[in-house]
């Protein structure tokens, strides 16, 4: 254990360096880069709001905020996992030449998505101000669901990044899966249009709970119950543990397949 902490400390600076490289490459190209990261979710929100409110006539109060809270959490998850997925394969050049603890790479991608999440959150805050939406003090609990989903994403990323080394085509498969996954998460539709059986099915979806938690504290002024917290923690930790086990078991073979 002590040895693990020591090596982690040794490579902490590398982790920081890799994230800042990602940042430079993403934002140096265009001065508008950061602005775009904030604008993008807002524009999506405008489009979705226009389409859905006119076409489907859902009864949702504050639909723009409802959509934005859901999509912020969900896009963080897809961003983090999709970019992590190819992180080992993409760092093949380093892995083949020097010894580095390999979990650094999925961790790097998750944390980079985490940095980007802050820009989406700024977009959310701006919309809350523009639309004069009143938030209550429960909003200070918002970091809790974000931490939960970060851990969950890291677990999924560990699984996906190691599987991708052996089966390259799951990248395409996962693209399809996230699309389906999105429809099984109440982001653009309200929960109350779901039948009971459907709701049962959807409650097996961890993202449903994280999104719900985030909306509860940001929009509805509710403090989630202990039960909800336990459900979220279980999903996160179990995924992280499974991910770590799969990753640890397969990591020595990575170098032979990249």
């Amino acid at each position: 254990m002590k040895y693990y902490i020591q090596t982690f400390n040794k490579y902490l600076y590398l982790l920081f360096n890799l994230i800042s490289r990602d940042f430079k490459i993403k934002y140096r190209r265009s001065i508008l880069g950061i602005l775009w990261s904030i604008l993008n979710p807002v524009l999506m929100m405008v489009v979705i709001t226009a389409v859905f409110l006119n076409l489907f006539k859902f009864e949702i109060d504050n639909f723009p905020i409802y959509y934005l809270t859901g999509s912020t959490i969900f896009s963080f998850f897809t961003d983090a996992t999709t970019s992590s997925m190819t992180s080992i394969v993409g760092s093949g050049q380093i892995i083949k030449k020097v010894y580095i603890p390999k979990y650094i790479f999925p961790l790097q991608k998750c944390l980079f998505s985490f940095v980007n999440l802050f820009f989406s959150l700024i977009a959310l805050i701006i919309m809350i101000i523009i639309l004069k939406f009143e938030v209550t003090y429960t909003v200070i609990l918002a970091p809790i669901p974000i931490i939960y989903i970060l851990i969950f994403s890291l677990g999924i990323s560990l699984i996906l990044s190691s599987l991708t080394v052996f089966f390259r085509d799951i990248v395409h498969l996962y693209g399809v899966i996230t699309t389906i996954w999105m429809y099984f998460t109440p982001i653009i539709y309200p929960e109350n249009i779901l039948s009971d059986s459907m709701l049962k099915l959807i409650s097996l979806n961890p993202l449903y709970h994280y999104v719900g938690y985030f909306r509860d504290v940001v929009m509805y002024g509710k403090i989630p119950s202990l039960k909800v917290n336990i459900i979220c923690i279980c999903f996160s930790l179990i995924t992280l543990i499974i991910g770590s086990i799969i990753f640890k078991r397969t990591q020595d073979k990575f170098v032979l397949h990249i």
Partner: protein
Amino acid sequence: MNDKIGDICMNSVQISNVSMHFNTNKQKMNSLKEYCIGLIKRQIDYSKFIALNDISFNIKKGSVVGIVGLNGSGKSTLLKLIAGVLKPTKGKIIVTGVIAPLIELGAGFDMELTARENIYLNGAVLGFSKKMIQSKFEDIVDFSEVREFIDVPMKNYSSGMVARIAFAIATIVNPDILIVDEILSVGDFQFQKKCEDRISEMMKNNTTVIIVSHSIEQIERLCERVVWIEKGILKMNDNTDIVCEAYKNS
């Protein structure tokens, strides 16, 4: 009897009965689709290639060892095993101390970034702290003689310039073990001389150096002992003049 205990303390690298096998499937099986088809047809064949076969030898602390052998004989594979990049299929490798691996040029260089950024990035890849890189930054730039180009993206560098920076970064600390795989052959003679000087300096500081080179003169000049590997098998492990003589006559 005491000799044996002394041996263990004196060795930087102990390689015992190490074998390395690679899977060489005809069609590289790296998609789920192919794997499933293979499962149904029941023909996932793993033909293996033995890159190293039952190699054992020790490297004494502070010594300079050369590894020679023809192309494809397994030299780079052996160095990667010592550096921990590969894990042996069989056998055991015990390494004592900090390794500076120079297996191939510029591990972790991102050619889109400038040399300055790459020095920090590559230093981090090698496990150095920010403070340490900062304090040695000037040394690295001086040694590699690329000061005018320090803020130019590295994609515009010549391969020799890349090699200079890579060598300068990897040798900023006095590692316990320095691994050099044909790096020296890239630079011009002036830089080769500089590198050799630095290696000699390290030897004085009790660094163990392992060199792979196709230049027998270089090996003869630098090394005390030479290991000769042929087709994955250890053919000779002896003093430089003996092995080089035999190798040249083979």
